[in-house]
């Protein structure tokens, strides 16, 4: 029978043995394995912060809405919420249908998914285009460049609610100069907008897109400008000596080297645009321009339909994941 001292030594020896074997195991890891080992805590944290809410949302989406009693959700219904929302069976209960109910223009602008996609495509395209142009200008040396940069950044710095009120008032009949209650506004006389643009889904979507472009182009311009300024100036000098025209220098030096930055900036903007809510709520209201986020927020806060809200939220996350995948495939093809 071992004495107490012997037992303690054995336990201590076991501990020491575990530690030594753990260190030995670690020392034998490859650089890649060791890198993953070090990343494990961060990945676990990400799992808790990012993945757990997704799982929780998915779980909620499997339950019916509850309108009576203290329970947040009703009975377990499996994928019924998804089926009913996607097939349009649930459209009457939702503030707006997820998918267009017909192929008409009015049905298109009543559908949350269509409105979100139209908003995303238009705003990201024009923000990239205009932002690229602004970055090209700002990349040149000229007097007052610093002030021009400040002027470009100002819209980005304005809080979204203030910006929303600016555009709301701009398109209020007889308040802004653009629209008059009797069709006497500038935009009405030009035939660009109806007499009541903030009650008209197409007009309101256009206004929201313009408002977003006005604000967020600066973001794109700054990101692209940062990419442009990282290009080695010697390349341009060499190209000039070789007789390359400005267009050739842009096409063969600027564009290829800036493309990764532009794609990453577009990815960020696309994700943000797919989640659009604030500017819509403040300019026209979600009833007129129903985005996916509007649908989630109205279902949750206004209708207390937690199951439906969770389902739309998860569908939205899925759609964003698909869009991100498209970008990632694009990056892979470009070798980014």
């Amino acid at each position: 029978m071992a004495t107490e001292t012997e037992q303690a030594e054995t336990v201590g020896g076991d501990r020491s043995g575990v530690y030594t074997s753990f260190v030995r195991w670690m020392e034998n890891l490859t650089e890649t394995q060791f890198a993953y080992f070090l990343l494990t805590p961060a990945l676990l944290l990400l799992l808790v912060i990012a993945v757990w809410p997704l799982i929780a949302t998915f779980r909620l989406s499997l339950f019916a809405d509850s309108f009576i009693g203290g329970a947040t959700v009703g009975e377990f219904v499996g994928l019924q919420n998804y089926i009913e929302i996607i097939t349009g069976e649930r459209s009457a209960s939702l503030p707006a249908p997820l998918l267009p109910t017909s192929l008409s223009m009015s049905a298109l602008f009543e559908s949350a998914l269509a409105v979100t996609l139209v908003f995303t495509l238009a705003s990201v395209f024009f923000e990239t285009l205009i932002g690229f142009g602004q970055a090209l200008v700002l990349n040149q040396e000229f007097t007052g460049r610093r002030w021009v940069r400040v002027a470009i950044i100002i819209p980005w710095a304005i809080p979204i609610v203030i910006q929303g009120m600016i555009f709301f008032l701009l398109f209020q009949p007889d308040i802004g100069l653009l629209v008059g209650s009797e069709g006497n506004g500038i935009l009405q006389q030009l035939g660009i907008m109806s007499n009541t643009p903030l009650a008209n889904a197409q007009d309101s979507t256009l206004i929201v897109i313009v408002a977003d472009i006005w604000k967020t182009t600066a973001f794109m311009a700054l990101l692209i400008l940062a990419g442009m300024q990282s290009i080695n100036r010697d390349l341009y000098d060499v190209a000039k000596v070789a007789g390359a025209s400005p267009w050739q220098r842009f096409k063969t030096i600027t564009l290829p080297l800036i493309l990764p930055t532009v794609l990453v900036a577009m990815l960020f903007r696309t994700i943000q645009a797919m989640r659009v809510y604030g500017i819509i709520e403040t300019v026209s209201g979600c009833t007129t321009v129903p985005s996916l986020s509007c649908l989630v927020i109205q279902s949750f806060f206004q209708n207390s339909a937690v199951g439906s809200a969770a389902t739309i939220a998860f569908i939205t996350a899925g759609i964003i994941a698909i869009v991100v995948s498209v970008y990632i495939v694009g990056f892979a093809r470009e070798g980014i």
Partner: protein
Amino acid sequence: MVKGNNSDRKRGRVSRRRFVQAASASGIAVGLAGCVGGGGNNNNNNGGGGSGDTETPISTEPPEEEVTVQIAADSNFKGASDAIIQTMRENGGLPDNIQVEFIAGSFESGDRRAKYQQLLSAGQENPAIIMMDNGWTIPFIARNQLQNLSASLPESIISTVQDTYLSNMLATASGQNGDLYGIPLFADFPTIQYRKDVLREAGYGDSDFDSWATESMTWSDFSTVVADGKEVLSGQLDDPSRAQGFNWQGDAYVGLACCDFVEFMSSWGGSYFGEFGNLFGPVGDRPITVEEEPVINAIRMMRTFIHGQDDPESLEGYEQISPEAVVQYTEEPSREPFTQGRAVALRNWPYSIRINAAEDAFGEDLGVMPLPYQVTAEESKYGPEIGGIPSALGGWHLALNPNASETVKQGAVQVFRALQDDQVRLDLFEIGGWIPPIPDLIATDQTRELEPIGRYVDQLKVAGENAVPRPVTVAWPQQSTQVSKEVNASIRQQKSPADAMASLASSLADLEERASQG
């Protein structure tokens, strides 16, 4: 794959052995800190928290200790809190040991509903009293989130409330079995405001204005009067095209479903769910009547007001009196042109009477009348409650948070008692224009002396007597979205009234069925 050799690794600044040691030490430290820090963060839920039981009897005796009763209200109440508390102490007998603290919530009703939903779901003790819009109190009752006052307070208190307050308003604070869950704080009744000075030039006189004050008129007569006034106003403005006739709120928002459309519809004798008795249920077991002729005619009349006789759905006998912009007007955008002197008439809530009747606005040239009607209460299929002069019932209740501690609930009962005093109600009317939800208190000698609203208390009384509540049930939040969407689409000429109402009927039926399933 190349395995790094040990000598290379050891040349690094931190060896893996050292890393394991450091990480272990840090982990233990963080773990200990977590254990220490995680212990004492539960104070809010301990130490006298309420049971959350909604039917426990509450003592009506004042508490002996110092108690603070928080009331979730709005910035107007918070701004006037000193005056309100003073009258509650002096006239309502609120004991000195009960401190009242008003908390200003968002001015937007929907934001406050969402906030209260969160705090009641979380079982928070404070605020003890919550000011709730009569348009969304019932869903909270259905979720069992409010104290049942009928079960918790003596019958004498409840019967006093039920005998004196507007019955239609009480209905929006009552459960399916008639139990009371909130006490009306103030009521709101829309009226028509109009420019007497303009109509005088159009040939109308004081005898007309006096008659309209309490008897109102039909919509067809009203449209003629406004059209006459608009003609005069057009001649007065530098830009005649900016003259407007009758402004109201036709935007696709909850106000259209709860109020403006309810008024147009019921003035024709139409209703969402047939008889008045069906307004609050039973959900899923009541007729849907939005496709009936009175409802369709109400929309056709709204369209005629906006688009005139050129509209294929127009009704004969009505003038084009509203600007097209009404389809995107809510309260304030509709009021501004009127206050600026560019409109003849405005449908709005009493807050705007105070603005427009001020001396620096129209002063005594502001006329007020109850809303016009098209069929009398007797002629209406669902009369006498539906039909005749319409007025959407607005207003707010005070409800009790069941999670408050027993002592705070006792204090809250004293606050309710103080607020029931007639003089306190009248003082609230004077302080902030909060109309007493008690018909007998609206038009009194004392209220007539209040400037400027006192000039219009007779009209408000008529509006109050004819006030129609919105059909608030657990399904209403979703139904109101569908109503406002369809009605707005129709008045924008995107859908015919019949198509819009057929689509609405289908949506309402679907929502009724879903809500009735729980």
